[in-house]
């Protein structure tokens, strides 16, 4: 009896979610600030767009999308559809580097698409496969075929399979789309490790658009690979010094560049 009631409640809840404009289950990003603003995270069965602020931020945008995929996918396989030109322009996907972000290439199927239409075609095909954890779609620039209809098809497939489709718009500019959320990402200075070593990946992520109405805000987050989660970082933590020691010293900074030099810090860190 009690189980029946529980099931009924769940059904009602599902119906309610389905009728709301930004309906559907959400996955948390790990960042409390982002999750709170978005009402629990990003919608799972939806299309999300990630733009890079400048050309040099493309790797950050792609990585941000991978991280969202990791948050959503729960160890399930991920399909990444990438236009050839993105690799030529921004660098080819490097599997050992994906490991370092927490994505084991064991889970990844990469589709190398020749052009924009092929990217969309393969992306849609993949988005219709519910056992996947997430689909990354990475066309170059603004393909002609990437219009409202095309994005709606992707969004629909994503909703039906309850699977996030994350579109990295390398070299692209925002166009009308059926995306549930749109992000603009840029690299942010990392919190440094010992001896001036670059630290964990940090990003500034601006939410340009959100179906649920949280757009217009930005967050600075760091990716924690070990927990596969974004964490908020206070602004004070990232305004570090430059390597020659001119900037403000940070708490916890033990070796000054002038004294230690950047010659062998890696060994020091590993030994410690």
């Amino acid at each position, binding site marked *: 009896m009690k189980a029946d009631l529980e099931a009924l409640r769940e059904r009602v809840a599902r119906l309610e979610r389905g009728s709301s404009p930004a309906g559907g289950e959400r996955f948390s990003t790990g960042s409390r600030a982002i999750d709170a603003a978005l009402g629990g995270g990003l919608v799972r069965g939806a299309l999300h767009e990630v733009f890079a602020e400048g050309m040099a931020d493309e790797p950050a945008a792609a990585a941000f999308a991978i991280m969202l995929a990791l948050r959503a996918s729960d160890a399930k396989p991920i399909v990444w559809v990438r236009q050839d030109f993105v690799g030529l322009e921004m660098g080819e996907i*490097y599997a*050992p580097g994906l490991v370092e972000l927490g994505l084991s290439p064991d889970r990844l199927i990469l589709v190398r698409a020749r052009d924009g239409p092929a990217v969309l075609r393969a992306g849609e095909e993949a988005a219709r496969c519910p*056992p996947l954890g997430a689909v990354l779609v990475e066309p170059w620039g603004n393909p002609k075929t990437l219009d409202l209809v095309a994005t709606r098809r992707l969004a629909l497939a994503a909703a039906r399979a309850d699977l996030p489709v994350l579109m990295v718009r390398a070299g692209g500019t925002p166009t009308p789309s059926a995306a549930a959320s749109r992000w603009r990402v840029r*690299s942010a200075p990392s919190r440094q490790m010992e001896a001036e070593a670059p630290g964990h990946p940090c990003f500034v992520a601006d939410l340009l658009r959100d179906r649920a109405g949280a757009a217009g805000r930005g967050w600075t987050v760091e990716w924690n690979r070990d927990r596969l989660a974004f964490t908020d970082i206070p602004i004070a933590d990232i305004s*570090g010094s430059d*390597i020659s020691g001119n900037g403000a010293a940070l708490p916890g900074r033990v070796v000054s560049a002038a004294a230690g030099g*950047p010659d062998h810090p890696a060994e020091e860190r590993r030994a410690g």
Partner: protein
Amino acid sequence: MWFPLLPADRIIRQRKDARDRPPLVAVEKQKGAMRIVALSREAKRAGLVVGLTLADARARIPDLWVEEIDRIADAALLDAVAEDCDRVSPVVMVDAPDGLTLDITGCDHLFGGEAGLRLGVSQRLRRARINARTVIAGAPDTARALARHAPLQGRIAIVAPGEEAAAVRSLPIAALGLEEKDRVAISRAGLKTIGALIDRPSQLFASRFGEEMTLRLRRLQGLAPAPLTPRRNVPAIWSERRFAEPIGREEDIHSAFADMAREIGDELAARREGGRVFEASFYRADGAVRRVAIETGRPVRQGETLLRLFREKLDALADPLDPGFGFDQMRLCVLHADPLAAVQPGLDGRAIEDDAVADLADRLSARFGPERVVRFLPEDTHDPDRAARAAPAIFNPMTSSLWPAPEAGEPPLRPSQIFNPPQRIAIRFAEIPDGPPRRFSWRRKEFTVRRAEGPERIAPEWWRAPDDAARDYYRIEDAEGRRFWLFRAGAYAPGADTHWYLHGVFA
């Protein structure tokens, strides 16, 4: 099947005005003289023979059409004929340079018996203006010998089962295909026909000419099996549709194809197998054949799955399937099959999901090509460029724990994207000569280095590139937070030029 005048047929086919031309001979330079190596029917009728020098031939018939022989083109024509014969039977053997052997076991009923089949093939060849002699017999060697060596008059076209030995009796010794000196030796012994050989004890010949000869003799009579090497792999399973009226409408083609796929699926299920390599052949009414092959990662047997795979593939063809005036025949073959247990209804959810992902990889591979749908496999090497290998996903099913987990707490030590080859950068300012740069420019943009870690020295594997210098790698972060992987080619040496490269970008 023998094409006695193949080179001449080929040349005549190419010329519209062939009818108005004088008798044709094809020549080749042999032992310093131009000799006739092939001729047309007209030339033969005029009394010319193969081996005659061109000068002698010209003396007899001043008005000759002379061409040089082109054996490559002749082989191509033979291949084209073989391809066309594929309609009759999937087992076609090329009997170079001017013959074909077809295994028509089980095919003749489609043409209304052996006579009908022979008639159909002969008509097709006649329309293509190729002279041919065709013989049907129970053994390949019997048929071959009869086609090539039997006299034109009173020739047996279809050898009844069990009559092989009788049919070859009157053939000349040459039908054995022996070396010239052996043939001459036998002739000198007064033996002129195959029948004469058959009547004598075989040990007699075996001791003089070797076992090979008695074996050939037995094969000729259909008493010993002959090895067959078909030009294409013989399909394990195949299904076929012939249409009295060529079909061209997409729905018709599709429904016929769906039918065949179902048939193949049932057959595979009965054998407890699944196909890995499939091939569809579309035979156009005008003789052109289009073949489309598909390879799958796992054995497949559901007709539906097969149909979807082929639809993907056909949709993605660079030059689409063109029915022209219609297809008069379609065939679907399984070229390679693997054992596949019957589907168990109680399969757990995980296995079903794995299957769905593998299906997706198959479909994507069918459409975009297996080399475009890849997985990354680790390589045991220090060379960063070779640390990962992209391999077709369909041949490398999903497996876990190939890749080691990174050390906890460490920031990424390898970039997520890499440039191949590394990109040259210009160093604007370096504080310490052998340290990382402070400022550099890449793609006409200036970057100010804020954090750096290194060097991590990576030496090339000596057995690969003994002359390449070791590289000193640095992880770099600029003032705005972009993270790069730079290296200096070679160790620092005062006074020497050092070159810096950007190899990858971090998240």
